């Protein structure tokens, strides 16, 4: 065991000391933070300045009937079209809504302003006008106002999740993102670290140091040491990512939130008119964090680390077997396909089926079978998985990697000493059956 530890140590240190490790460690969290920053930036710069509309209604239908919105106010003026145009040139935040006399026939409305109005603003006005017209027409058809008011139903779905601690807001969006992200990270890291194991073994084989080493340790110890060492590198990387990302993004988010509140206060005092901005806008950011709060992060990180390790051990053993069988990386192609297939297959199914239906039969089986469970289960976990299913999946995954490690080690011990021979599947099967 002491020797395995020495091998782990070498594999670990030789990789962690590399520049590329350091770069990757800092690059990924900065990408995350960049993403956060971009989202906030978009929120921040979204059009939330107060807008004034001067409505010139020559048709007389809409007079006094527009409803003020949080950041949109309507005034009605009797100015002429030409005068209004001039006015608009002088006031930057002023929009002229011109409704011509022949509106009933043409349905044409103009918005005149120095600035371009946003799409959401226009559609809001469109909706209001359609609403008003519909009401008029219904009234003309003899429908009672009371009935009309009753018919307006507002629907707001609020998904709640029943847990031991009582009801919780189930934030489907955040659940989806967390599931997707962790599954994607596992998918990616299985490839990255699995390939590292394979490349390391090919390097030892082609540089011919392997025979020197297996005269000191058993081939199985060498393989195990390499797999565990590189796995430790992966874990270190993930832990650093988690620490860096949460650390920096918490600091960043706090700073950002404080800054925002101050700004809003300033605006309110300056304008001195009561525009209800704060609950709406501050609410989005708060909602975002509130949604994130409903997700049990320690649990997800815990299961994530387990499924990463389990999946990594299972697949890296197979990668190790492939590495031992070939003389260089170009020869790995033919053996890589059956290894990568279940991963890609699960990932695609996961994105399309499991996310939409996390409790279906297919989702269940994919999250139980060891070859697919690391990805499938990570998608399901944020939605909530029965404890027995989780336990079964974990037990099978542990069994799965013990099995693949055993199979791989039987191929590995023969493969590392074979040179200059093109290997077929038949050959691999033969190696597998060799005695010690």
């Amino acid at each position: 065991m002491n020797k395995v530890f020495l091998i782990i140590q070498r594999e670990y240190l030789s990789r962690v000391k590399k520049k590329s490790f350091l770069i990757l460690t800092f690059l990924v969290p900065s990408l995350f933070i960049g993403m956060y920053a971009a989202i906030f930036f978009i929120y921040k710069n979204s059009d939330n300045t107060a807008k004034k509309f001067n409505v010139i209604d020559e048709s007389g239908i809409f007079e006094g009937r527009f409803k003020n919105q949080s950041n949109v106010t309507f005034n009605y003026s009797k100015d002429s079209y030409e005068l209004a145009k001039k006015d608009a040139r002088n006031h930057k935040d002023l929009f002229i809504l011109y409704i011509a006399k022949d509106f009933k026939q043409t349905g044409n409305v103009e918005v005149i302003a120095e600035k371009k109005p946003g799409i959401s603003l226009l559609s809001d006005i469109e909706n209001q006008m359609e609403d008003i017209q519909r009401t008029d027409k219904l009234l003309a058809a003899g429908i009672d106002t009371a009935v009309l008011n009753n018919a307006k139903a507002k629907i707001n779905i609020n998904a709640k999740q029943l847990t031991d601690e009582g009801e919780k807001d189930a934030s489907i969006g955040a659940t989806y993102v967390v599931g997707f992200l962790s599954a994607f990270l596992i998918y990616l890291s299985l490839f990255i670290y699995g390939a590292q194991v394979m490349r390391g073994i090919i390097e030892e084989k082609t540089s011919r140091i392997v025979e020197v080493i297996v005269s000191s340790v058993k081939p199985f110890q060498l393989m195990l040491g390499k797999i565990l060492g590189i796995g430790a590198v992966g874990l270190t990387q993930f832990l650093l990512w988690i620490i860096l990302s949460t650390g920096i993004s918490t600091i960043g988010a706090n700073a950002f939130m404080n800054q925002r509140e101050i700004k809003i206060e300033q605006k309110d005092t300056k304008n001195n008119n009561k525009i209800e901005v704060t609950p709406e806008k501050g609410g989005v950011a708060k909602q975002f964090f509130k949604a994130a709060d409903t997700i049990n992060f320690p649990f997800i990180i815990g299961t994530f680390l387990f499924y990463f390790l389990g999946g990594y051990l299972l697949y890296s053993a197979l990668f190790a077997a492939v590495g031992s069988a070939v003389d260089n990386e170009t020869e790995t192609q033919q053996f890589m396909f059956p290894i990568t297939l279940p991963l890609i297959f699960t990932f695609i199914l996961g994105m399309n089926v499991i996310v939409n239906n996390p409790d279906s039969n297919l989702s269940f089986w994919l999250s139980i079978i060891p070859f697919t469970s690391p990805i499938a289960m990570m998608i399901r976990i944020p939605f909530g998985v029965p404890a027995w299913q989780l336990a079964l999946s974990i037990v099978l995954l542990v069994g799965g990697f013990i099995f693949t490690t055993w199979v791989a080690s039987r191929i590995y011990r023969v493969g590392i000493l074979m040179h200059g021979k093109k290997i077929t599947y038949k050959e691999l099967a033969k190696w597998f059956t060799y005695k010690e």
Partner: protein
Amino acid sequence: MLSIRNIVKEYAKHRALDDVSMEIERGTIFGLLGPNGAGKTSLIRIINQITAPDSGEIYFNGEKLNQNHISKIGYLPEERGLYKKMEIGEQMLYLARLKGLSRADATARIKYWFEKMEMQSWWKKKVEDLSKGMQQKVQFVATVLHEPELIILDEPFSGFDPVNAEVIKNEILELNQKGSTIIFSTHRMESVEELCKHIALIHKSHKILDGSVKSIKNSYRNNTFHIGVNQSIEQFNLQTADVLATKTNDDEGVTHTLKLKDGYGANALLQELIPLTELNYLQEVIPSINEIFIKTVKE
């Protein structure tokens, strides 16, 4: 020291070693010879416990070979290499510690050897910065660093220039004098005659020859002599010997190769020759290991 008993090793359809036995005495330099593919490497790998035999046993100092013996064996494989990107010193330390040395012991011994082999400045260098010969030197040192009782060298001189080959040869002899037993696998027969006390010849999975170099050579004497004479003696019908070959050389006269007939010795031959011709020399033909090797392999 090492007792190899009835080793059989089979691969899918091919029997690499068939009932091979040999005894290797403590303190000897043992030459393991054989053409390519004879099974030498298979046997060496079994001794190193890299693979296990299908049947048969190996005893190390009277104990059945087990994991504890790994640290007592040093192995320099024919196909050898080092980690290209790792510093030499660190690499040596790693290899020595894998053999069970403590960090402190390993460091001290590496320093000793680096000084001895004049490679002090290599500690921080990477393998890819060294020449092939330098790498071989590093590898040799790594093999003997843990002061193994048994050192197995597979083609140790390949890749060395004559100067460094001499250095390594002297190191091997010194290690042997200090008590290490050495198994030496090679095709270079002149180094076998120079170094080995015992040899075993493996051919087509079988051991076909085994013994001390002296006794093997003696057993291959077949009463053949070279004689140098002024004039050819072919016209005489010798009673004591048959003429196998004749070589005429203008300056030095004639050289004959003679084989004694049954029942006659060298003295009888001399007595018959002296009256007939002017004899310059008489020398018994003792086959070189190389000749024995080729002869036995061809048989």
